């Protein structure tokens, strides 16, 4: 399991390949790799969004992300997982979050990825502030459920 909080743009596909190449112990057991990539839009709630800053609570962020993964490990058979989340200043089309889950079977990989993402959205202490046209800013006040 790896969790990274980073303040710069990254290529999620490169990070998945790089991480997997460093984990030779279970390579033969992998039957499924499920990934979720969250990308910043240039619109939200009827407004054009030109940028975003993401604040977090260092320490609690990593602790809560670990809990998300541990709970998923209790529910599904997972070989490994990688989570990368941006903080700081972000512009549209940049990746905000990557979740990758490796498993022997697709069902476990799919379900665990979805679970970790939804748990992240509701429990991990990140906060987004959007930059709008005309130099206005606003906090994003809540996340919607991905199951609605």
């Amino acid at each position, binding site marked *: 399991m790896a969790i990274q909080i980073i303040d710069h743009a990254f290529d999620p596909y490169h990070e998945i390949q790089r991480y997997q190449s460093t984990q030779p112990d279970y390579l033969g057991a992998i039957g499924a790799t499920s990934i979720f990539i969250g990308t910043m839009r240039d619109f939200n709630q009827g407004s054009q969004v030109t940028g975003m800053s993401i604040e977090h609570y260092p320490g609690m962020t990593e602790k809560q992300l670990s809990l998300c993964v541990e709970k998923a490990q209790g529910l599904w058979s997972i070989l490994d997982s990688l989570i990368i989340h941006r903080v700081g200043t972000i512009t549209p089309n940049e990746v905000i979050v990557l979740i990758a889950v490796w498993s022997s079977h697709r069902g476990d990989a799919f379900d665990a990825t979805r679970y970790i993402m939804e748990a*992240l959205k509701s429990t991990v202490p990140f906060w987004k502030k959007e930059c709008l046209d005309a130099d206005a800013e606003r906090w994003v*006040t809540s996340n919607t459920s991905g199951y609605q």
Partner: protein
Amino acid sequence: MSIKVYYFASLKEHVGHSEHELEFIQSLTVKEVWFEANADLALPKNTLAAVNMEYVDWNSLVIDGDVVAFFPPVTGG
């Protein structure tokens, strides 16, 4: 007793600072910590609380050395 209190995101702007130390004599609940630290400020609806980086409810007791954090609903991902 002494605890450290942190505020994040919109709540940091609401209280006007990101952290402070709070001294107190008797045990306090998390809710009492808010009003000890912010006597003149209403507690915004939906505020979340953590002690030592774990979510707690408002009636949890804090002890000497605890780190309390107040913040709005999370919006990552």
